[in-house]
């Protein structure tokens, strides 16, 4: 599934990232295949979403999250 289809409370592992101009920035922020990501809360109307990875919290829009393929692990 894709990261934008996840729900609060899920934990997922990143499988791959689609090509986009944002890809290198996402990778720099630690979104590397194999990284564990927890889905935290979301802003009003459900977008953007807050994630926890590598012991820190990162917010991103669902449009950008749709470029990240993940597998649920919990």
């Amino acid at each position: 599934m894709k990261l934008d289809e996840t729900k609060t409370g899920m934990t997922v592992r990143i499988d791959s990232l689609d090509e986009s101009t944002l890809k290198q920035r996402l990778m720099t922020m630690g979104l590397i295949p194999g990284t564990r990501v927890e889905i935290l809360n979301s802003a009003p109307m459900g977008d953007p979403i807050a994630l926890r990875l590598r012991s820190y919290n990162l917010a991103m829009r669902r449009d950008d999250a749709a470029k990240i393929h993940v597998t649920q692990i919990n």
Partner: protein
Amino acid sequence: MSTLSVALTGNPNTGKSTIFNELTGARQKIGNWPGVTVDKKVGVIEHNGRKISVIDLPGTYSINARSQEEQVVSDFFKQNKPDIVVNIIDASNISRNLFLTVQLMENGIPLILNLNMMDEAERHGIKIDMKKLEAAFGMPVTNTVGRSNKSVRKLLDVFTNAVMTNYKPSELINEHIEKIRNIERSGLAAAKVEEEIISARYDLIDKIMSQAVTVNSAGKTLTDKLDAVLANGVSSLVLMVAIFYLMFQISFNWIGQPLADLVGEFFDETLAPSAAEAMAESGVADWMQSLVSDGIIAGVGAVINFVPLIFTLFLCLSFLDGTGYMARVAFVMDPIMRRAGLSGKSIMPLVMGFGCGVPAIMGARALDTHKDRMISILVTPFLTCNAKVPILALFAAMFFPDNAANIVFAMYFVGIAVAILMAKILGATTFKGQESTFLLELPPYRLPDVKTVLLEAWDKGKGYLIKAGTIIFAMSVMIWFLSNFNSDGMTEDMDTSYLAGIGSAMSTVFAPQGFDTWEAGAAIATGIMAKEAVVSTIGILYGADEDAIATDSDEETEETAQTLLATAMGGAFTPLTALAFMVFSQLYSPCMTALGTIKKETQSWKWMGFAFVYTCAVAWVASLLVYQIGKLLGFE
């Protein structure tokens, strides 16, 4: 001995500025990096008889030169070889923080790794073995507790004692660098090479983490609990409005305004009369007396009045920023701002725009993309800043005495609506196709360091004071000259002054809007210098006694309105033309100070010119619509 040069580098939100402030105190100089709008902070201190010059590099996640900050850091290391580079690392977020560390190591920069906020890391279940970390990198590792001076002072000993040549990158690091060189030589596409390199860096980080760091789950942290309320769902918006309301109350009602009143009182009741008296006694020429009293003291006093407000507002903002709450504001506002063609991060500068456009325009530098930055800067001037409020309050009281508050509120709404409309139009035309993204770290909530908050507020407020002070000073002299002189020299009769000439030339433009008197034209012209000048110009030109023009409170506004209605002004405007004039005043050109700030922030005369022309055009069309539609509907 020569001066020891130390550079601080690290990610945003690592407490780097706090450490810098603790090291250098007030002995720091804040300037600008050449060609960009990024603060350059340098401080010189002495320790153990050695002069140490510390430079605080902007916080960055990498040195890939994608943003201005990254460009600055990357260029700095290309052009300078500081004696010591300290990499400040947020220990509670060590994995991602080490990305920059690894990248710096690849560039052959010897580092001291300073782990900050170890106490917080331990509360989050993260234990770091400093000895093992030192071995893994082959570089010295130190630690500090963000707000403790003692631990930060200890760093100074490290600076003066450290001999960087005693350290060599470990085998692990050398292997990694070798791997990077191989990827670079692989002949893959440039983007692919970069991605492989990023992955290799995190591979190395994961390896080092497994050797030197243990991470246990710590359960729900304070940040998690607060975010469940402050950054989650609809409740977050309600709380945000409450927090901002409180901030504006503090700035404008509880602390800022009372202080401003004291300053204003001092100018009006002490400084101005005593200066006038002193000049009269010592026989200073009449024109000089008039210049000093009516020009300089009146003009500069008007600006000094704003200083306590601005400082209090900046103090509140710096405090909120230091707690980490500002990132949540951007987060919860993004859904709304995105629909207006902006990013959630634009909310902060725009909220400031209701106080003053100058810091609002400066604040736009925090935004991610060129598109977000430019749109935010270009729509800020439509918002109702403090200086426009007297115009709206006065006209509303004069021509809509039964509905004054509603009319003023409607004008705020007109400003917001036009700002949103223009953001959408600019986003779909001039900046079409450019990206707008929202990728934002939500740092843990922390109690901000008092010294850092004070220094930050002082620094921002000082910038405003100097900029506004110099420009308003020059402008006051100019308005005084224009309204007191004509081609024959000094004149008592303002109707023949240069200002009247400019005003009547301006007024021809406003014939279709119905307010084509030279007085209105002159008020609009001086308003380009400063919006505060609109009301005072109108007051002077319609011959009201200067002391009678005051809009500080509802009663005063009411009295001023009554005084002015009795003059020719009562006949010069109808309710409809007054409304058109208010709409025009609300929307047209940013003031001179704001225009100068736009030039500085966009690094372009062209964008400054555009901001002037397009806001005037929008204001002209909007006021035309108000007047013409109003007339069709039978109002007058």
